[in-house]
């Protein structure tokens, strides 16, 4: 990566999701040089795996297109994909950042013509669909992938498949000799935007995510509802491919729970409210959605959306933390057991599918990389204690997309302050 030029006036942004991309373009459009580092082979992050955003029910790719255009057209931004930050040393205005870059086995000659994908036969689980579908081992990570370049999966390196991929490429873009590189970058400030990961639903034992096929997570449900997803958006349940018209949503699956995550993950209520509209969109009046909740947290104008969903006759609300789930082995249906605490009503409700609104936890433990203050949940604490390293988006708190972008924009100013001080000092 000798071609990466970074100075004490450079802002390094770690994480290429919505927060990181925002931070990168906002900083670059303020006239700063940026290196954007993403672990995956393309930018976009978790939001690119969402079908729609609440409360507008618009599509994440819409904003993504604009951000990518801003990014493509801006010479101040250098993007590194398949790269991970392993260590950050130094202080505000003078950081040395160790980076490990994993091989893509495809160079910049790639035109994304797709020939290698056709040549390869091996299928691998598709991470974009959380493994609910498979894809060729030479692939374009997504239709919106940036960089718009194919990836050869390491699993086929050294196999005839890899040779076939190389042979199929007319442009010498497939380079099987690529190897892992490690190098060090200089930076004045760091925006840490590594985002969140869904809480491990298997740990919530009473809900049997690890035992019952038709108990899935909210992020998986996004893929099931997306026309570009594994079921072409036809909400088919895993056990038998039957249409899931009667769907249960369990709130606080892992959140607000001393046995799991003690914080409230903020987005889950709105996410489930939104997902009832997917069921409605797909099955019309045959849809049946039930939300099991403790408190519906639809703050500020989100309240409008809550009231809109409440008005939908196909959606039921049950004030209850579900006690446990059992499976009807014959049908594969899930049966939720518990008590509606508004007036004490016991239920044993049968559903086609149960969606766990899983909580958010930071996707990376930054303490393994840098000396930074975090809260009890591992989110980066705001404040000056962190020198020139600033948390952005869900690395700093459980936030929705809009607040993540706000947070990213704010973190850019904090980074700009640092590099401007440096610039002044260096004259």
């Amino acid at each position, binding site marked *: 990566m000798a071609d990466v030029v970074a100075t004490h006036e450079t802002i390094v942004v770690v994480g290429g999701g919505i927060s990181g991309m925002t931070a990168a373009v906002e900083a670059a459009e303020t006239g700063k040089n940026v290196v954007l580092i993403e672990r995956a082979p393309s930018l976009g992050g978790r939001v690119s795996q969402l079908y729609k955003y609440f409360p507008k029910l618009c599509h994440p790719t819409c904003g993504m297109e604009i951000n990518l255009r801003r990014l493509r057209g801006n010479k101040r931004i250098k993007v590194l994909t398949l790269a991970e930050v392993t260590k950050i040393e130094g202080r505000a205005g003078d950081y040395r950042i160790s980076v490990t870059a994993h091989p893509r086995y495809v160079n910049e000659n790639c035109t994304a013509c797709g020939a290698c994908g056709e040549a390869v036969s091996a299928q691998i689980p598709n991470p974009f669909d959380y493994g609910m579908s498979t894809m060729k081992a030479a692939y374009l990570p997504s239709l919106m992938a940036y960089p718009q370049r194919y990836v050869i999966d390491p699993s086929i390196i050294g196999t005839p498949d890899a040779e076939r991929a190389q042979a199929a490429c007319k442009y010498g873009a497939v380079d099987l000799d690529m190897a892992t590189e490690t190098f060090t970058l200089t930076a004045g400030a760091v925006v840490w935007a590594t985002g969140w990961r869904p809480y491990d639903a298997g740990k919530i*034992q*009473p809900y*049997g995510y690890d035992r019952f096929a038709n108990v899935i997570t909210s992020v998986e449900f996004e893929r099931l509802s997306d026309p570009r997803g594994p079921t072409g958006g036809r909400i088919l349940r895993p056990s038998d491919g039957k249409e899931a018209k009667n769907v249960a949503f369990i709130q606080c699956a892992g959140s607000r729970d001393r046995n799991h995550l003690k914080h409230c993950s903020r987005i889950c209520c709105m996410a489930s409210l939104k997902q009832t509209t997917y069921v409605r969109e797909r099955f019309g009046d045959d849809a049946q959605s039930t939300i099991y909740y403790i408190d519906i947290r639809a703050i500020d104008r989100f309240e409008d959306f809550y009231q809109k969903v409440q008005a939908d006759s196909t959606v039921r609300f049950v004030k209850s933390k579900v006690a*446990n789930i059992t*499976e009807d082995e014959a049908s594969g249906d899930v049966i939720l057991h518990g008590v509606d605490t508004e007036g004490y009503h016991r239920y044993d409700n049968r559903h086609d599918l149960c969606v766990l609104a899983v909580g958010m936890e930071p996707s990376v433990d930054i303490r393994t990389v840098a000396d930074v203050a975090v809260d009890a949940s591992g989110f980066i604490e705001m404040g000056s204690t962190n020198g020139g390293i600033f948390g952005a988006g869900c690395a700093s708190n459980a936030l929705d997309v809009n607040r993540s972008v706000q947070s990213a924009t704010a973190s850019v100013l904090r980074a700009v302050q640092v590099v401007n001080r440096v610039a002044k000092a260096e004259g």
Partner: protein
Amino acid sequence: MARKEYSFYPGCSSERLTSASNYMVSVESMCKKLDVQLNEIPDWNCCGASIGYAEGGELPRHVMNARNLAISEQVNKGQDVVATCAACWLGAKETKDRLAHDSDLLAETNEALREAGMNLQYKGEQEVRHMVEVLIEDLGYDELKKPVVKPLEGIKFAGYVGCQTNRPFGIAGESFENPKYLDKLVEIVGGEPVEKYDQKVTCCGGALAFSEPEKSQAQIKKIIESAYDHGADMIVTPCPVCQMNVEVYQGQINKRYGTKFNIPVTYYSQLMTVAYGGTAKEAGLNGQIIRAQRLEEIAAKR
């Protein structure tokens, strides 16, 4: 010198001619085979059981358990306390747990303890553990497999863990909803565990067996039905209360619900004793009201 020694708290139901005497017999045989020595706590008393709460209240129950632990600290120095009964284990462990976090309660407990003989004082020096914990953690599955000479081939066991061996403390590394250790033990002795036995941690209503028979028997029915549905030949359990309830009420349940239940309910220790080559008597199989014939046959084999 045995390879392991423990301070042993048998509990009321393990005495001669009591409801779990067969458990006791098999535990003794099992431990002999495994070269584990149990040193009974002298003049131990009842744990009070969970049902003791109404009349006993809080402190008296803790005091009862503290007395046993204090005697153990005095007599069986440096040994972990081991119980075979879920209630005894839980009672003692809860007391240890509460007294460790509540100095007032500790003071009050010792104040009362002084009234008993042997000028006792509870210090909380010893761990309180269940026999199953000891087997899994101190010996380990591999060690437990070694002595097997008569694998219990072809017998399908529903591993019924029940409540108090499982909650709130449970066995380290096991989940409350789907603990696997009983199934592992069954595998080790060559038997076949029931996959997806969905009632393995259902409460048998033991505490209410006498006072609310119809309610507890409704629970037991679920437990047995699922065992049958999943093709089990026998039920195996680590808890004397569970064993007794699930075994002895089958007749009444059949009357009440017109079912035809007649499934043996055994202890893990009985399985191991037989697999280790012990006789039916050594395994306390003669203590089964519903005979565990398949086990007896294997035990009878040369």
